[in-house]
């Protein structure tokens, strides 16, 4: 416990000293709160990597990891008291604590990444991966032999459901009769995700899109086992949030990844603070902003993802950006679009 207190307290003291020593620095001081460990191999680790880019750009930064929703209010206020200009609370769970903190603290700006709901005084960064997932769906709908697709989510959060909706819409745009099975497992139980994948494969599903963070390793292991034993009945997979195209278990069967460039998203909000253009509201990060994009596996570009399929994906991307193609959205529209 003392170690825990010391490890969260000491960096702030040192950070405050550094801040006082370099008061004229142009880049804002940024604190990051994560729900998980920064070595989780997924959501929180990607955020830390995004923060590292801000550090490299000259910002004073700190990270407070494994923060639960009930601890968040205290941590947000502590970060503000320590003189940070911007606190990025990385996770939907931080939405209400950040809104509460923003009511009384005006010197520090609060951004909640992964939230799609507007709250007074804060910026919600909505990562809309549905468009990139739509492009993945086009691949799945084109390449499936059984017409059966599967989606595995770590939890039915709005951002996860958006990936599912995009994937389904993309697949049905090229093959109307495909079915997409949907299951929810866990963000950290690798074995559970492997079992779910095996269940999918036993039902004849041959395209599996996981959005389960680091636990996707279980999905890839199941696919590796199956494809090694059944090279004539290959199952293909995808990556989500992070780039999984070269994952060691099933990289050769990973067709593409719908990724979030958290470093760019964080740089966008940090720039707003630095330039004093900060405006509370929802910041939509998507295909058009270049933050949530589909990355094809370069190894497979001369194989299953041929030139014709690549052209289809590119055309869909252009239509999504232009707004001539839209994905059904169950969420309420934002009250007012936020300027970037």
């Amino acid at each position, binding site marked *: 416990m003392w170690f825990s207190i010391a490890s969260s307290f000491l960096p702030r003291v040192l950070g405050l000293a550094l801040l006082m020593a370099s008061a004229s620095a142009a880049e804002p001081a940024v604190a990051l709160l994560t729900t998980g460990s920064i070595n989780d191999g997924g959501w929180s680790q990607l955020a830390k990597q995004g923060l590292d880019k801000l550090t490299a750009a000259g910002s004073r930064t700190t990270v407070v990891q494994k923060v639960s929703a009930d601890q968040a209010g205290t941590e947000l206020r502590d970060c503000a008291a320590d003189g940070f200009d911007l606190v990025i609370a990385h996770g939907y769970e931080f939405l209400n604590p950040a809104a509460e903190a923003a009511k009384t603290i005006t010197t520090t700006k609060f951004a909640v990444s992964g939230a799609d709901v507007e709250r007074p005084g804060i910026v919600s960064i909505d990562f809309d991966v549905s468009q990139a997932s739509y492009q993945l769906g086009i691949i799945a709908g084109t390449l499936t032999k059984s017409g059966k697709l599967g989606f595995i989510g770590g939890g039915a959060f709005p951002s996860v459901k958006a990936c599912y909706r995009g994937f389904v819409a993309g697949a049905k745009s090229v093959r109307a009769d495909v079915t997409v099975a949907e299951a929810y497992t866990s963000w950290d139980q690798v*074995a559970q995700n492997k079992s779910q994948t095996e269940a999918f494969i036993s039902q004849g599903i041959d395209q599996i899109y996981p959005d389960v963070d680091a636990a996707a390793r279980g999905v890839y292991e199941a696919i590796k086992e199956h494809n090694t034993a059944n090279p004539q009945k290959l199952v293909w997979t995808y990556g989500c949030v992070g780039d999984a195209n070269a994952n060691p278990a099933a990289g050769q069967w990973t067709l593409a990844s719908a990724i979030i460039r958290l470093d760019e998203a964080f740089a966008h909000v940090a720039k707003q603070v630095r330039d004093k253009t900060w405006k509370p509201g929802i910041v939509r990060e998507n295909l058009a902003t270049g933050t949530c994009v589909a990355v094809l596996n370069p190894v497979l570009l001369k194989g299953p993802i041929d030139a014709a399929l690549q052209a289809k994906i590119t055309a869909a991307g252009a239509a999504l950006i232009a707004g001539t193609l839209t994905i059904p959205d169950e969420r309420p529209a934002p009250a007012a679009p936020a300027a970037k």
Partner: protein
Amino acid sequence: MINDLLIVVVIAQTLTAATPLLLAGCGELVAERGGVLNIGIEGLMLTGCIAAFAVTAITGNSWLGLLVAMGAAMVLGAGFALMAITARADQIVAGMALNLVAVGVSGTVWRALQSHGVTELPASAGFSRGWFGWSGWSSFNDLPVIGPLFFDLYGLSIATAGLLLLTWWVLRRTRIGIVIQAIGELPDAAAAAGESVHRWRWGVVLFAAACAGAAGAFLSIMRTHAFVPEMTGGKGFVVLALVMFGRWRISWLIAGCLLFGLADSVQQQLQSLPGSRALPYQFFQMLPYVVALVALAGLSRSAPGPAALGKPWPVSR
């Protein structure tokens, strides 16, 4: 092909899902029959996960990884025994401390591995399906029914079946079993008969720790070939519940673990059925817990646990 039938797939998945529960449960049952309640089983499993992964990733030797996983869990188990048996501390508190230590240690080791670029097992390392990956069995994998349900199982699944049988026999038919039950029921009487209660309790705690470490190794270097922080996901607590609801009997423990594994396997199939989204997904996820615990609570007659369970010995010094 018959091996692709849903029932065969579900049974194979049931056996796989039940393996870590049975393995850790076997050890915990023996410990509790000996009067020691170790709620740190989750932490011991997690220790086994990271120790097996780290050693296998560094050396490429899966057998060494398995042994070190058991050894590392036994070291933590010894720490628990030192507090709960020798120092006579509260067993619940000592077990909770064990869980916290294991989370911290496994996270620290994982961070250290990451900083040295050790995040994957070598391609040839880690146990694969089929009796510790022994190629001699692989030609039998396609046999109808018996292939997927016997020859294609993980090695530790088979070893666990043997361990359960051996443990049942030892507890029921041997002097060792009688002494273990005596120190769990009437430690004073056992001591009067010349048995060292502390020594026996240390023994059952270390046995339970070794089993939990092996269960952790099953998850990391056999089932998934990966490590993710806190990847045990509460399985240790499920084991505790299954041992208690199973009336501290091997047969009921097996029934409970298999039922849990079956319900888990079935819910995975159910989740992907059309129309399943009419129910919240949490309903499917809780099914294994509800089915196993309700069934055990309903079918098993109420029975008190070992009389000295959780009590330090001697009661007063």
